[in-house]
Protein backbone atom coordinates (compact mmCIF):
# COMPACT_ATOMS: atom_id res chain seq x y z
CA UNK A 1 0.00 0.00 0.00
CA UNK A 2 1.34 3.41 -0.99
CA UNK A 3 0.72 5.04 2.37
CA UNK A 4 2.42 2.16 4.22
CA UNK A 5 5.61 2.49 2.16
CA UNK A 6 5.98 6.16 2.91
CA UNK A 7 7.76 5.77 6.25
CA UNK A 8 11.17 4.65 4.88
CA UNK A 9 10.94 7.51 2.36
CA UNK A 10 10.31 10.02 5.16
CA UNK A 11 13.27 8.66 7.16
CA UNK A 12 15.55 8.81 4.14
CA UNK A 13 14.55 12.37 3.26
CA UNK A 14 14.99 13.57 6.85
CA UNK A 15 18.47 12.03 7.10
CA UNK A 16 19.56 13.24 3.67
CA UNK A 17 18.27 16.74 4.23
CA UNK A 18 19.77 17.18 7.66
CA UNK A 19 23.20 16.07 6.44
CA UNK A 20 23.43 18.89 3.87
CA UNK A 21 26.25 21.24 4.79
CA UNK A 22 25.45 24.89 4.01
CA UNK A 23 22.88 26.53 6.21
CA UNK A 24 21.47 29.96 6.85
CA UNK A 25 20.53 31.73 10.05
CA UNK A 26 16.75 31.69 10.08
CA UNK A 27 14.37 34.29 11.45
CA UNK A 28 11.33 32.11 11.63
CA UNK A 29 8.00 32.94 13.18
CA UNK A 30 6.91 30.72 16.06
CA UNK A 31 3.49 29.72 14.65
CA UNK A 32 2.41 26.14 14.01
CA UNK A 33 -0.94 26.80 12.34
CA UNK A 34 -1.08 30.48 11.37
CA UNK A 35 0.98 31.89 8.49
CA UNK A 36 2.45 35.37 8.26
CA UNK A 37 3.34 37.15 5.01
CA UNK A 38 7.03 36.29 4.97
CA UNK A 39 8.05 33.81 2.32
CA UNK A 40 11.16 31.66 2.09
CA UNK A 41 14.23 33.49 0.74
CA UNK A 42 14.69 32.63 -2.96
CA UNK A 43 16.85 29.58 -3.61
CA UNK A 44 16.80 28.46 0.04
CA UNK A 45 15.31 25.21 1.27
CA UNK A 46 13.97 24.88 4.77
CA UNK A 47 13.57 21.40 6.20
CA UNK A 48 11.14 21.22 9.08
CA UNK A 49 9.94 18.47 11.37
CA UNK A 50 6.92 18.97 13.61
CA UNK A 51 5.15 16.83 16.18
CA UNK A 52 1.83 17.03 17.96
CA UNK A 53 0.90 15.05 21.02
CA UNK A 54 -2.87 15.08 21.55
CA UNK A 55 -5.14 13.81 24.29
CA UNK A 56 -8.27 11.91 23.27
CA UNK A 57 -11.35 11.60 25.47
CA UNK A 58 -13.02 8.21 25.14
CA UNK A 59 -10.11 6.84 23.10
CA UNK A 60 -6.35 6.58 22.77
CA UNK A 61 -3.98 9.55 22.85
CA UNK A 62 -1.93 10.10 19.71
CA UNK A 63 1.33 11.50 18.44
CA UNK A 64 1.26 12.90 14.92
CA UNK A 65 4.20 14.28 12.95
CA UNK A 66 4.98 15.81 9.65
CA UNK A 67 7.97 16.90 7.62
CA UNK A 68 7.95 20.02 5.46
CA UNK A 69 10.32 20.84 2.62
CA UNK A 70 9.86 24.55 2.02
CA UNK A 71 11.56 26.10 -0.98
CA UNK A 72 11.76 29.75 -1.99
CA UNK A 73 11.17 29.49 -5.74
CA UNK A 74 11.21 33.30 -6.08
CA UNK A 75 10.89 36.22 -3.68
CA UNK A 76 7.10 36.13 -4.36
CA UNK A 77 6.48 32.36 -4.50
CA UNK A 78 7.19 29.69 -1.89
CA UNK A 79 6.40 26.06 -2.57
CA UNK A 80 6.23 23.39 0.12
CA UNK A 81 5.94 19.60 0.20
CA UNK A 82 4.66 17.73 3.26
CA UNK A 83 4.83 14.12 4.44
CA UNK A 84 2.49 13.27 7.33
CA UNK A 85 2.20 10.36 9.76
CA UNK A 86 0.82 9.46 13.15
CA UNK A 87 1.04 6.98 16.00
CA UNK A 88 -2.09 6.21 17.97
CA UNK A 89 -0.95 4.69 21.27
CA UNK A 90 -2.07 1.09 21.64
CA UNK A 91 -3.13 1.02 17.97
CA UNK A 92 -0.54 1.53 15.21
CA UNK A 93 1.88 3.87 13.43
CA UNK A 94 0.94 4.84 9.90
CA UNK A 95 1.87 7.22 7.12
CA UNK A 96 -1.16 9.40 6.49
CA UNK A 97 -0.48 11.37 3.36
CA UNK A 98 1.17 14.15 1.40
CA UNK A 99 0.47 17.82 0.80
CA UNK A 100 1.72 20.31 -1.74
CA UNK A 101 1.38 23.92 -0.73
CA UNK A 102 2.07 27.17 -2.59
CA UNK A 103 2.08 30.71 -1.26
CA UNK A 104 2.11 33.76 -3.51
CA UNK A 105 2.80 37.36 -2.68
CA UNK A 106 0.74 39.49 -5.10
CA UNK A 107 2.03 42.92 -4.03
CA UNK A 108 5.53 44.15 -4.79
CA UNK A 109 6.03 46.28 -1.72
CA UNK A 110 5.40 46.17 1.99
CA UNK A 111 2.06 47.63 3.13
CA UNK A 112 0.31 48.02 6.45
CA UNK A 113 -1.64 44.84 5.65
CA UNK A 114 0.07 42.36 3.36
CA UNK A 115 -1.99 39.71 1.56
CA UNK A 116 -0.65 36.28 0.64
CA UNK A 117 -2.59 33.79 -1.48
CA UNK A 118 -2.30 30.17 -0.43
CA UNK A 119 -3.21 27.10 -2.50
CA UNK A 120 -2.74 23.55 -1.24
CA UNK A 121 -3.51 20.08 -2.52
CA UNK A 122 -3.79 17.27 0.04
CA UNK A 123 -3.80 13.54 -0.63
CA UNK A 124 -4.34 11.94 2.76
CA UNK A 125 -6.11 9.14 4.54
CA UNK A 126 -8.95 9.53 7.02
CA UNK A 127 -6.46 8.67 9.78
CA UNK A 128 -4.67 12.02 9.37
CA UNK A 129 -4.23 13.65 12.80
CA UNK A 130 -1.71 16.43 12.30
CA UNK A 131 -4.30 19.14 13.09
CA UNK A 132 -2.45 21.61 10.88
CA UNK A 133 -5.63 23.61 10.53
CA UNK A 134 -9.12 23.79 11.94
CA UNK A 135 -11.81 23.43 9.31
CA UNK A 136 -15.48 22.69 8.87
CA UNK A 137 -17.08 20.57 11.59
CA UNK A 138 -13.93 18.59 12.47
CA UNK A 139 -14.29 17.53 16.11
CA UNK A 140 -12.43 15.38 18.64
CA UNK A 141 -14.84 12.45 18.23
CA UNK A 142 -13.71 12.05 14.57
CA UNK A 143 -10.40 10.73 15.92
CA UNK A 144 -11.99 7.75 17.71
CA UNK A 145 -12.03 5.57 14.59
CA UNK A 146 -9.26 2.91 14.71
CA UNK A 147 -6.40 3.45 12.28
CA UNK A 148 -7.15 0.25 10.37
CA UNK A 149 -10.61 1.60 9.50
CA UNK A 150 -9.81 5.31 9.17
CA UNK A 151 -6.95 4.69 6.74
CA UNK A 152 -9.34 3.08 4.24
CA UNK A 153 -10.80 6.51 3.49
CA UNK A 154 -8.71 8.41 0.94
CA UNK A 155 -9.23 12.17 0.84
CA UNK A 156 -8.21 14.44 -2.01
CA UNK A 157 -8.67 18.01 -0.90
CA UNK A 158 -7.95 21.51 -2.19
CA UNK A 159 -7.40 24.20 0.37
CA UNK A 160 -7.35 27.94 -0.24
CA UNK A 161 -6.29 30.59 2.25
CA UNK A 162 -6.16 34.32 2.32
CA UNK A 163 -3.40 35.40 4.66
CA UNK A 164 -3.48 38.99 5.87
CA UNK A 165 -0.47 39.91 7.92
CA UNK A 166 0.94 43.08 9.37
CA UNK A 167 4.09 43.99 11.25
CA UNK A 168 3.97 46.98 13.56
CA UNK A 169 6.60 48.03 16.12
CA UNK A 170 8.10 44.57 16.16
CA UNK A 171 4.75 42.81 16.55
CA UNK A 172 3.39 40.54 13.86
CA UNK A 173 -0.37 40.20 13.60
CA UNK A 174 -1.81 37.72 11.16
CA UNK A 175 -5.24 36.53 10.17
CA UNK A 176 -5.80 33.50 7.92
CA UNK A 177 -9.15 32.65 6.37
CA UNK A 178 -9.46 29.11 5.03
CA UNK A 179 -11.78 27.47 2.51
CA UNK A 180 -11.30 23.73 1.86
CA UNK A 181 -13.01 21.46 -0.65
CA UNK A 182 -12.92 17.69 -0.50
CA UNK A 183 -12.88 16.79 -4.19
CA UNK A 184 -15.30 13.90 -3.60
CA UNK A 185 -18.37 16.10 -3.89
CA UNK A 186 -18.30 17.36 -0.29
CA UNK A 187 -19.35 20.90 0.57
CA UNK A 188 -16.89 23.76 1.02
CA UNK A 189 -15.62 23.96 4.60
CA UNK A 190 -14.24 27.00 6.35
CA UNK A 191 -11.82 27.81 9.12
CA UNK A 192 -9.58 30.52 10.49
CA UNK A 193 -6.33 31.12 12.31
CA UNK A 194 -5.19 34.23 14.15
CA UNK A 195 -1.69 34.92 15.42
CA UNK A 196 0.32 37.58 17.22
CA UNK A 197 4.02 37.39 18.02
CA UNK A 198 7.02 39.54 18.86
CA UNK A 199 10.76 38.98 19.40
CA UNK A 200 11.75 39.39 23.05
CA UNK A 201 14.17 42.17 22.01
CA UNK A 202 14.06 44.35 18.92
CA UNK A 203 17.72 45.38 18.74
CA UNK A 204 20.35 42.83 17.81
CA UNK A 205 23.25 42.28 20.13
CA UNK A 206 26.71 43.43 19.03
CA UNK A 207 28.05 40.05 20.17
CA UNK A 208 27.27 36.63 18.82
CA UNK A 209 25.05 34.85 21.27
CA UNK A 210 22.71 31.92 21.58
CA UNK A 211 20.53 33.00 24.47
CA UNK A 212 20.11 36.70 23.55
CA UNK A 213 16.49 37.80 23.81
CA UNK A 214 16.34 38.78 20.12
CA UNK A 215 16.71 35.08 19.24
CA UNK A 216 13.39 34.25 20.93
CA UNK A 217 9.98 35.04 19.46
CA UNK A 218 6.93 34.56 21.65
CA UNK A 219 3.28 34.85 20.80
CA UNK A 220 -0.09 33.21 20.73
CA UNK A 221 -2.29 31.67 18.05
CA UNK A 222 -5.94 30.77 17.95
CA UNK A 223 -7.58 28.60 15.33
CA UNK A 224 -10.64 26.56 14.60
CA UNK A 225 -13.39 25.59 12.20
CA UNK A 226 -16.18 27.79 10.91
CA UNK A 227 -18.53 25.10 9.62
CA UNK A 228 -19.41 24.49 6.00
CA UNK A 229 -21.45 26.20 3.32
CA UNK A 230 -24.70 24.73 4.65
CA UNK A 231 -24.00 25.29 8.36
CA UNK A 232 -21.68 28.23 8.68
CA UNK A 233 -20.60 29.31 12.18
CA UNK A 234 -19.06 27.98 15.38
CA UNK A 235 -21.70 25.32 16.07
CA UNK A 236 -20.15 21.79 16.16
CA UNK A 237 -16.62 23.00 15.53
CA UNK A 238 -13.37 22.64 17.46
CA UNK A 239 -11.49 25.73 18.68
CA UNK A 240 -8.00 26.07 20.13
CA UNK A 241 -5.75 28.67 21.70
CA UNK A 242 -2.02 28.08 21.96
CA UNK A 243 0.89 30.13 23.27
CA UNK A 244 3.89 29.73 20.95
CA UNK A 245 7.63 30.16 21.42
CA UNK A 246 10.32 30.05 18.75
CA UNK A 247 14.08 30.03 19.31
CA UNK A 248 16.24 30.96 16.31
CA UNK A 249 19.69 29.55 17.01
CA UNK A 250 22.77 31.18 15.45
CA UNK A 251 23.73 27.74 14.10
CA UNK A 252 20.84 27.91 11.64
CA UNK A 253 18.40 25.74 13.59
CA UNK A 254 15.01 26.92 14.82
CA UNK A 255 13.18 25.24 17.69
CA UNK A 256 9.49 25.78 18.40
CA UNK A 257 7.17 24.67 21.16
CA UNK A 258 3.49 25.29 21.80
CA UNK A 259 1.04 23.89 24.34
CA UNK A 260 -2.50 24.14 22.93
CA UNK A 261 -5.80 24.09 24.76
CA UNK A 262 -9.22 23.17 23.46
CA UNK A 263 -11.80 25.88 24.03
CA UNK A 264 -14.96 23.79 23.81
CA UNK A 265 -16.17 20.22 24.32
CA UNK A 266 -15.61 19.35 20.67
CA UNK A 267 -11.88 20.06 20.90
CA UNK A 268 -9.02 17.94 22.17
CA UNK A 269 -8.38 19.12 25.71
CA UNK A 270 -4.62 19.43 25.28
CA UNK A 271 -2.20 19.47 22.36
CA UNK A 272 1.54 19.76 22.78
CA UNK A 273 3.38 20.73 19.61
CA UNK A 274 7.09 21.03 19.02
CA UNK A 275 9.24 21.38 15.96
CA UNK A 276 12.73 21.77 14.63
CA UNK A 277 13.81 23.30 11.36
CA UNK A 278 16.93 24.20 9.49
CA UNK A 279 17.38 26.44 6.48
CA UNK A 280 19.81 25.47 3.73
CA UNK A 281 21.31 28.14 1.52
CA UNK A 282 21.57 27.83 -2.22
CA UNK A 283 19.53 24.64 -2.66
CA UNK A 284 18.22 26.03 -5.96
CA UNK A 285 21.73 26.59 -7.30
CA UNK A 286 22.69 23.09 -6.17
CA UNK A 287 19.82 21.44 -8.08
CA UNK A 288 20.43 23.74 -11.03
CA UNK A 289 24.11 22.67 -11.16
CA UNK A 290 23.01 19.05 -10.99
CA UNK A 291 20.87 19.48 -14.12
CA UNK A 292 23.47 21.59 -15.94
CA UNK A 293 26.34 19.14 -15.38
CA UNK A 294 28.17 20.57 -12.40
CA UNK A 295 29.01 24.10 -13.59
Amino acid at each position, binding site marked *: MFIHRGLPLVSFLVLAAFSLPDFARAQENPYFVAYDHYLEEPGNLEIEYFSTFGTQRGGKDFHSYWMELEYGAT*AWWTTEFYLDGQTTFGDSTIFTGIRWENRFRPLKREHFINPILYVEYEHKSGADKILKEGEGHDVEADFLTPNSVARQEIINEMELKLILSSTFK*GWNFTQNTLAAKNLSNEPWEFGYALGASRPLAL*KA*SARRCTLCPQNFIAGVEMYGGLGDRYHFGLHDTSQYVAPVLGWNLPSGWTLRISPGFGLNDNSHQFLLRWGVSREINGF*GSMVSRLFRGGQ
Partner: protein
Amino acid sequence: MRTRRTGVLTSILLIVAFFLPPALGQENANPASEKKSSAETMYSEIGRAPEKARAKRNPLEKDPDAVAAGRILFEQRCAECHGDSAEGGKKGPSLRANEIQDAEPGAIFWVLTNGVVRKGMPVWSKLPEPQRWQLVSFIKSLGPASAKTDAPPANTSQPRSR
Protein backbone atom coordinates in the same frame (compact mmCIF):
# COMPACT_ATOMS: atom_id res chain seq x y z
CA MET B 1 -5.15 -1.27 -6.53
CA ARG B 2 -6.47 1.80 -8.27
CA THR B 3 -5.95 3.86 -5.10
CA ARG B 4 -2.35 2.69 -4.91
CA ARG B 5 -1.65 3.61 -8.54
CA THR B 6 -3.25 7.02 -8.05
CA GLY B 7 -1.18 7.54 -4.90
CA VAL B 8 2.10 6.68 -6.59
CA LEU B 9 1.27 8.86 -9.60
CA THR B 10 0.25 11.77 -7.38
CA SER B 11 3.49 11.48 -5.39
CA ILE B 12 5.62 11.46 -8.53
CA LEU B 13 3.81 14.49 -9.92
CA LEU B 14 4.15 16.40 -6.65
CA ILE B 15 7.85 15.61 -6.30
CA VAL B 16 8.50 16.64 -9.92
CA ALA B 17 6.49 19.81 -9.37
CA PHE B 18 8.46 20.58 -6.22
CA PHE B 19 11.87 20.18 -7.83
CA LEU B 20 10.98 21.84 -11.13
CA PRO B 21 11.27 25.45 -9.89
CA PRO B 22 14.85 25.04 -8.62
CA ALA B 23 15.85 23.07 -11.72
CA LEU B 24 14.51 25.62 -14.18
CA GLY B 25 14.30 28.81 -12.17
CA GLN B 26 18.04 29.40 -11.95
CA GLU B 27 18.93 28.29 -15.47
CA ASN B 28 20.55 31.61 -16.35
CA ALA B 29 21.42 32.71 -12.86
CA ASN B 30 24.97 33.87 -13.47
CA PRO B 31 25.67 35.33 -16.91
CA ALA B 32 27.48 38.67 -16.57
CA SER B 33 24.95 40.72 -18.54
CA GLU B 34 22.05 39.48 -16.48
CA LYS B 35 23.98 40.20 -13.31
CA LYS B 36 24.72 43.73 -14.47
CA SER B 37 21.10 44.42 -15.34
CA SER B 38 19.99 42.98 -12.01
CA ALA B 39 22.43 45.30 -10.20
CA GLU B 40 21.12 48.30 -12.16
CA THR B 41 17.57 47.39 -11.18
CA MET B 42 18.57 47.13 -7.53
CA TYR B 43 20.35 50.46 -7.61
CA SER B 44 17.48 52.18 -9.41
CA GLU B 45 15.17 50.94 -6.66
CA ILE B 46 17.06 53.18 -4.22
CA GLY B 47 16.00 56.13 -6.38
CA ARG B 48 12.36 55.09 -6.06
CA ALA B 49 12.32 55.60 -2.30
CA PRO B 50 9.66 58.19 -1.44
CA GLU B 51 10.78 61.56 -0.11
CA LYS B 52 9.34 60.81 3.33
CA ALA B 53 11.36 57.58 3.58
CA ARG B 54 14.58 59.31 2.42
CA ALA B 55 14.18 61.99 5.02
CA LYS B 56 14.15 59.47 7.88
CA ARG B 57 17.26 59.69 10.03
CA ASN B 58 18.98 56.62 11.38
CA PRO B 59 17.98 56.61 15.07
CA LEU B 60 21.00 54.41 15.82
CA GLU B 61 23.46 56.72 14.06
CA LYS B 62 25.28 57.46 17.31
CA ASP B 63 24.89 53.99 18.81
CA PRO B 64 28.46 52.67 19.22
CA ASP B 65 27.26 49.05 18.88
CA ALA B 66 25.14 49.53 15.76
CA VAL B 67 27.89 48.75 13.22
CA ALA B 68 29.07 45.63 15.08
CA ALA B 69 25.50 44.36 15.45
CA GLY B 70 24.80 45.22 11.80
CA ARG B 71 27.86 43.27 10.72
CA ILE B 72 26.58 40.13 12.44
CA LEU B 73 23.15 40.60 10.89
CA PHE B 74 24.76 41.11 7.48
CA GLU B 75 26.68 37.85 7.76
CA GLN B 76 23.54 36.01 8.78
CA ARG B 77 21.07 37.47 6.27
CA CYS B 78 22.80 39.27 3.43
CA ALA B 79 26.25 37.81 2.75
CA GLU B 80 24.73 34.79 0.97
CA CYS B 81 23.63 37.06 -1.91
CA HIS B 82 25.79 40.18 -1.58
CA GLY B 83 29.07 38.41 -0.77
CA ASP B 84 31.05 38.15 2.46
CA SER B 85 32.61 41.59 1.97
CA ALA B 86 29.47 43.13 0.44
CA GLU B 87 31.23 43.51 -2.91
CA GLY B 88 28.52 41.61 -4.73
CA GLY B 89 27.83 37.92 -4.82
CA LYS B 90 25.98 35.19 -6.68
CA LYS B 91 22.66 37.01 -6.68
CA GLY B 92 23.03 40.45 -5.15
CA PRO B 93 24.95 43.53 -6.32
CA SER B 94 27.80 45.25 -4.47
CA LEU B 95 26.74 47.34 -1.51
CA ARG B 96 30.01 49.28 -1.71
CA ALA B 97 28.96 50.82 -5.03
CA ASN B 98 28.54 54.60 -5.09
CA GLU B 99 24.81 54.18 -5.72
CA ILE B 100 24.49 52.68 -2.23
CA GLN B 101 27.19 54.56 -0.39
CA ASP B 102 25.92 57.94 -1.61
CA ALA B 103 22.28 57.11 -0.85
CA GLU B 104 20.49 58.50 2.20
CA PRO B 105 20.26 56.01 5.09
CA GLY B 106 16.46 56.35 4.89
CA ALA B 107 16.48 55.18 1.25
CA ILE B 108 18.55 52.09 2.11
CA PHE B 109 16.22 51.37 5.01
CA TRP B 110 13.25 51.65 2.62
CA VAL B 111 14.74 49.12 0.18
CA LEU B 112 15.53 46.74 3.04
CA THR B 113 11.95 47.01 4.28
CA ASN B 114 10.28 46.57 0.89
CA GLY B 115 12.77 44.34 -0.89
CA VAL B 116 12.89 44.18 -4.68
CA VAL B 117 10.52 41.27 -4.82
CA ARG B 118 10.25 40.91 -8.60
CA LYS B 119 14.06 40.84 -8.88
CA GLY B 120 14.68 38.32 -6.13
CA MET B 121 15.39 40.45 -3.07
CA PRO B 122 13.01 39.46 -0.29
CA VAL B 123 11.31 41.95 2.03
CA TRP B 124 13.22 42.24 5.28
CA SER B 125 10.50 43.80 7.39
CA LYS B 126 10.53 40.55 9.34
CA LEU B 127 13.61 41.99 11.03
CA PRO B 128 12.45 44.49 13.64
CA GLU B 129 13.04 48.15 12.73
CA PRO B 130 16.08 48.64 15.02
CA GLN B 131 17.80 45.65 13.38
CA ARG B 132 17.20 47.11 9.91
CA TRP B 133 18.77 50.39 11.08
CA GLN B 134 21.72 48.42 12.47
CA LEU B 135 22.14 46.91 9.01
CA VAL B 136 22.01 50.38 7.45
CA SER B 137 24.72 51.54 9.90
CA PHE B 138 26.94 48.64 8.86
CA ILE B 139 26.35 49.14 5.13
CA LYS B 140 27.16 52.84 5.37
CA SER B 141 30.29 52.06 7.39
CA LEU B 142 31.72 50.00 4.52
CA GLY B 143 32.56 53.01 2.38
CA PRO B 144 32.94 52.95 -1.40
CA ALA B 145 34.65 50.14 -3.27
CA SER B 146 37.85 52.19 -3.81
CA ALA B 147 38.29 52.38 -0.03
CA LYS B 148 37.64 48.70 0.45
CA THR B 149 41.12 47.92 1.79
CA ASP B 150 40.45 50.22 4.74
CA ALA B 151 37.04 48.79 5.49
CA PRO B 152 36.65 45.80 7.79
CA PRO B 153 35.59 42.56 6.09
CA ALA B 154 32.03 41.56 6.86
CA ASN B 155 33.02 38.22 8.31
CA THR B 156 35.34 39.47 11.03
CA SER B 157 35.03 37.02 13.87
CA GLN B 158 33.33 38.29 17.00
CA PRO B 159 33.58 37.09 20.57
CA ARG B 160 30.83 34.69 21.57
CA SER B 161 28.79 35.26 24.67
CA ARG B 162 25.80 33.73 26.37
